[in-house]
């Protein structure tokens, strides 16, 4: 097991009151998440905007200090590591960011951006470093002659490749790709996904690939985890979840994927969820999805469902799973 996350919580305190302190409930962006990732496996993490996917990634990578829970990388507990050790552990985990515009320092050349991890960790320098940067640029499909250019001279897709090259620089085991394609044109999305797949084969990488709908993770994921309001509600192999979604929320997400065959597409029934996602600073009892669930039973308000094993790597957090 490469990565094991148990009951991870990330609550953001909300400063309350201008003069007098009063109690304001924290934003529970991630509220008890369990998942695991095997070596050379890709987990697609799917959920609506604001459900806490980025926060989960950051909490796992210790960019935020998690409120509670455990994160183990190859058995090492990361949440307890002293800062110095944590810095070392970072070399094994990298991140590709959501916004290819904001994630590259506009004042640094591509070469400086890609080589930064190598220089910070003192891995190599001089000629060797330059050769490595060229190599990385070639690997992600950028011409090494662009090494002295600045990020704003590139298209979104090219910038995302720069981000990928930076993530690859330290030869990590694990890469969190936080919606690496949602800011890109549809025509370029496939190119970047294919690049990530190629790199996975070439370097034996493991990914947590974040997206906000299931169609985006279709080609890359071995397994999928569906997130709703700070929790994972269902996780299973991609084909399994595609064929037999157990959680009503997963079914709603699946119904939104267009089907290429026009005849089937015409008969596709979209499940439109009523209402809005509740605010993440709300106090909950029972199931978080029940306010929008068509199958909710009175019990849903009383008991909070936990991930239950349905076998075949399939877990669902629902009192009335439709499997």
């Amino acid at each position: 097991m490469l990565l094991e996350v148990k009951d991870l919580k990330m609550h953001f305190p909300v400063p309350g009151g201008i003069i007098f302190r009063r109690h304001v409930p924290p934003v529970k962006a991630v509220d008890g998440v369990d998942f695991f990732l095997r070596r050379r496996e890709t987990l697609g993490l799917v959920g609506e905007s604001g459900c806490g996917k980025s926060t989960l990634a950051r909490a796992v990578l210790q960019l935020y200090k998690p409120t509670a829970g455990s994160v183990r990388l190859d058995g090492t507990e990361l949440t307890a590591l002293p800062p110095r050790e944590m810095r070392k552990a970072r070399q094994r985990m990298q991140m590709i960011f959501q916004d290819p515009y904001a994630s590259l320092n506009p004042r640094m050349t591509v070469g400086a951006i890609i080589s930064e991890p190598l220089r910070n960790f003192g891995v190599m320098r001089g000629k060797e470093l330059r050769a490595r940067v060229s190599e990385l640029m070639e690997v992600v499909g950028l011409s090494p002659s662009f090494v002295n250019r600045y990020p704003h001279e590139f298209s979104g897709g090219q910038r995302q490749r720069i981000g990928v090259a930076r993530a690859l620089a330290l030869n990590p085991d694990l890469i969190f790709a936080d919606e690496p394609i949602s800011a890109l044109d549809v025509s370029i999305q496939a190119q970047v996904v294919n690049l990530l797949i190629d790199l996975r084969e070439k370097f034996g990488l493991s990914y947590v690939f974040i997206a906000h709908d299931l169609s985006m993770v279709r080609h890359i994921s071995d397994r999928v985890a569906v997130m709703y309001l700070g929790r994972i509600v269902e996780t299973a192999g991609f084909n399994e979840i595609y064929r037999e979604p157990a959680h009503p929320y997963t079914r709603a997400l699946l119904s939104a994927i267009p089907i290429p065959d026009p005849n089937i597409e015409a008969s596709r029934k979209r499940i439109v969820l009523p209402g809005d996602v509740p605010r993440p600073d709300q106090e909950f009892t029972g199931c978080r999805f029940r306010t929008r669930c068509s199958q909710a039973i009175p019990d849903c308000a009383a008991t909070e469902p936990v991930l239950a094993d349905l076998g075949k790597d399939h877990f669902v957090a629902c009192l009335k799973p439709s499997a």
Partner: protein
Amino acid sequence: MAADSLMDGIPAAPVRGRSLWSDAWRRLLKNRMAVAGMVVVSAMTVVSLLAGLFSPFSPTMQERWIGARPPMYRHPTVKNEMRLKAGDPADLPEEALDPSAREAVLLVEAIERDEILRVTLKGGVIRALRIETGAESVESFGASGPTEYLNLLDDQDRPEGPRIPDATLAVGGKPPFDAPAGAEGKAVSVGVRWVKLAGTKPSEVNVSLSGGKVAGLTRDGSGIEALTVQGREVVSFMLDGREIAHTHILGTDQSGRDVLSRIIYGGQISLGVGLAATVVSLLIGVLYGAFSGYFGGRTDNVMMRIVDILYSIPFMFLVIILLVNFGRNIWILFIALGAVQWLTMARIVRGQVLSLKEKEFMEAARMSGAGHMAMVMRHLIPNTLGVVAVYTTLTIPAVILQESFLAFIGLTVQSGTGESKESWGALVNQGVQALGSGGERWWLLVFPSIAMAATLFFMNFLGDGLRDALDPQQKGKTA
């Protein structure tokens, strides 16, 4: 995956990237006012830096007999200090064979009765003063005692030897050598012979006239190293067949000092103070603001409260007290003015940093293992420099104005040697005082004011242009 297909539209040849700076530079060049600002400000800076080359006179050179004269006033004169080539020692008269002896002959035109000619000597002893008027002898030569016409000055220009009274000359006869045409019959030549004292600097003879004109100057015997001639109203002076004349383009002040030269040297002080204080504020402000914003939380709170407290101190008052108590040292002024300005700089940089640190590239940097230093110095500060550059170009004129205010109220700064440095503010102040009831001496006020106003004006143009060029809203959209 075909890598080449992605690079369509981008020629592979150019390897050098266009930084945001070069983009901004291009935008700046499109802005005419900013370009004008840049040209004027650079010109001002260059002229001030090379004041020695550009100013026609020394700003402290006084020609009191000229007084305040309007712009374009022209008076032919000898150079204030003129170096003459050393002649052949064999030409020396017999009595001057002493190797340290020097002699110069002045041709003075039309000295009237009772007019005064004074000879002073620095670093030497006058051996003889002889007056020749050609065939005829001098009608009268008055001196109050045989040795009293020696005025010996020591190195500090303090009279050392016996004082001389004024030598009174009367005119008559022909000069013994080639006098300028028309000078015959009314010129007199004055020979001064002196001996250099051992260990003294090159001698300098100072001849002043209360009347008449210096018509010529010749050397007799070995050369004179430096000779200063002052006349009340000196006619053209010929040297090697060329006329040497002074034109005071912007006039002179009451002490006969050249206004243009004083403005150029004043610019050196004003711009220098502006620049130095801004650099001080830049260094402190940028680092302070960047670290405060970067660490955030309690640290930020404390650091910014300190800034708030310093803000509330009436700094002008403090600067005045400092200057009055610790002497009008130019360094105190730099530090004091810089210390006021850094507060705003720190606030501006902190504000920038607060928004920048939320950017994803900061997280990316942390993932890349960057430490605090690298985060601040490599990632944050370079991204604030656009705003910093704009604010800097607006700080320089603000500091210039503050210094001018201080100078205007009389707190001029002094250099390390105690010599008073007169900035534009000081010149304006003197201009106001010298103006006269009907504004007769307007040029003393108008020109320094124009110099200062134009500089501030164009600096603000440049600052505005920079702000437009570095407009954060355009950042990232230029891809």
